[in-house]
């Protein structure tokens, strides 16, 4: 197996508040290989976006990495000073966020924004940067890029804007792309186009992609492996086929069967009763135990770590040997 491009080891993200410390991400470990797309799924508040923010070094204070390590190509990046991190961001790590409207500056043309980013990270003069910017726009599928480069963001539709954001994230050929809900704000017909684009980019540049989303359909189409998060912890991780068709963790099974599917008539959907605990009230033992149909004594007191379960790893005592 090739050396992982990104390695996250025992990551813990905390938010100190007046009423005590909230642990938003707790003992999370995973890795992504070059050319691989890792999907990160979970419900709101599961800590998936915060994990992405911790990796790109943009945690909002008072949130902080309390312990653990993040390694990019074998080199620690979680303890770098802000200046060094800023040079890595954009050059070695590209970020794509949910809302393409707020990721672009409305006062500058997309050409100006692309050229600036290119010149910050690569040694190009203005003319070279401009022709590279046009190439990039063509790569992400913007028609007539030489004409559109001087347009402002508001001239573009939502799907086209997200393409521009992807072009911006790609401009320095980053090794890692962190995409946080890149298709959530888009209509289904545009979603498919953006997913295909992300896949193509990962394959062609050998970049690793961390795709954060709550949409299992998007994961099924895009990811090679999936990590399922629950209450800040890793519930299950494994190859996409196995997680979707043979989930091992009771939370993943519940989640999968609660998704309505086309071409399947059911009177009612399987549902997981209750809701994910608030960060102030995570139960002892396994965080999923109050909602789990298969819980037993050990789950109430002792916290499980991910352990081998079929082709996957699941943090569940059912698989303790």
């Amino acid at each position: 197996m090739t050396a992982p491009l990104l390695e996250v080891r025992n990551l813990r993200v905390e938010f100190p508040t007046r009423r005590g410390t909230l642990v938003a991400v707790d003992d999370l470990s995973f890795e992504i290989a070059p050319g691989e797309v890792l999907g990160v799924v979970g419900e709101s508040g599961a800590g998936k976006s915060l994990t992405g923010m911790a990796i790109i070094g943009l945690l909002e204070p008072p949130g902080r990495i309390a312990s653990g390590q993040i390694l990019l190509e074998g080199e620690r990046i979680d303890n770098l000073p802000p200046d060094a991190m800023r040079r890595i961001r954009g050059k070695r790590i590209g970020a794509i966020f949910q809302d393409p409207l707020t990721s672009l500056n409305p006062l500058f043309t997309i050409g100006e924004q692309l050229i600036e980013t290119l010149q910050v990270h690569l040694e190009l003069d203005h003319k070279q940067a401009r022709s590279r910017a046009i190439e990039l726009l063509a790569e992400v599928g913007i028609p007539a890029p030489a004409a559109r480069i001087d347009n402002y963001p508001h001239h573009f539709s939502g799907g086209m804007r997200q393409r521009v954001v992807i072009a911006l994230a790609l401009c320095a050929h980053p090794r890692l792309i962190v995409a946080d809900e890149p298709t959530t704000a888009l209509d289904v017909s545009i979603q498919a186009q953006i997913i295909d684009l992300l896949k193509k980019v990962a394959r062609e540049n050998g970049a690793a992609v961390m795709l954060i989303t709550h949409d299992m359909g998007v994961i099924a189409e895009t990811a090679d492996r999936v990590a399922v998060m629950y209450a800040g912890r890793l519930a299950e991780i494994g190859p996409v086929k196995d997680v979707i068709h043979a989930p091992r963790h009771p939370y993943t099974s519940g989640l999968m069967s609660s998704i309505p599917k086309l071409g399947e008539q059911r009177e009612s959907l399987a549902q997981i009763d209750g809701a994910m605990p608030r960060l102030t009230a995570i139960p002892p033992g396994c965080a999923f135990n109050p909602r789990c149909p298969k819980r037993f004594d050990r789950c109430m007191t002792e916290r499980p770590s991910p352990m081998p379960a079929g082709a996957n790893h699941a943090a569940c005592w059912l698989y303790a040997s």
Partner: protein
Amino acid sequence: MPPDTLLELKDVGRTFDVSRPWLDRVLEGEGRRSLRAVDGVSFTIKRGETLALVGESGCGKSTVARLIVGLYPPSEGKIEFEGADLSDPASSPMRRRMQMIFQDPYASLNPRWRVRDIVAEPIVAHGLAPDRATLEARVGELLSQVGLAPQDGEKYPHEFSGGQRQRISIARALSSNPEFLVCDEPTSALDVSVQAQILNLMKDLQQRLGLTYLFISHNLAVVAHIATRVGVMYLGRLVEIADARDLFTQPRHPYTRMLIDAIPDLEMSGKARTPVAGEVPNPISPPPGCTFNPRCPHANERCRSERPMRIDLPGSRSAACHAVEEGRLSASGG
């Protein structure tokens, strides 16, 4: 009108004025501009069924919902509830019998009111409870009906999660004993496991109380689960309407086919998704003829110039497409 028809829309249209301010128009010599959000939409909803309207953002599905409950008056056409024209002031008692559930459970509940007051408001407004004790008993009953505890009435909305807030919205909508609920994306702000809880609750309530739903959604899988009939909208027009099973197994309109093909495939059967070309055009200046023609693989000269009317097809369905009408499109494959 057949007796089991609850609601009928007859050629309903709605135009919004999207002109720039008067001074800008004068200075730059521009005229007024208008946007046809809903254009000639007709359909009927039978008692006890769920009609879903689907389409991409800006297709006018939410505007149709708002026209029906009377949040906007229609610019043209008629909306009839049990045969009574809703634009007629004499029909206002009918309004009690329809209620709406909104998308965002965080914005649709007053944060300063206790839940019991939120749920009680329609009962008080319509004068449905003779005294305080009846009112309290009714509120408690409504909260239990949606899976909350009667004691939850003492709390404020911020003490509840998104799914529980949507339950409160449903309890409020049910409090005036409506027969017809208009649900505008009721689960799209919720996580999937919570979405399943709310969809199950809605189906259960429909069976117990004999409700009729108009269900607006962009999520076709959710629609396939809950709807009996489905209407597909594109740029303000209803392009196809059919029984849910027929629509999903044998879509006729090229746009419906495109929407169904674009759904990410959870089964990972490896079926090739038809790449979708282009985007929804600007609704202020829609293309002439069939508005879908710039994205349609089957478009010809006629599609670019003549607007297709909805024609009836076998099996109580209809579609607005020249290619379907001329038989250029086979019934199953594309």
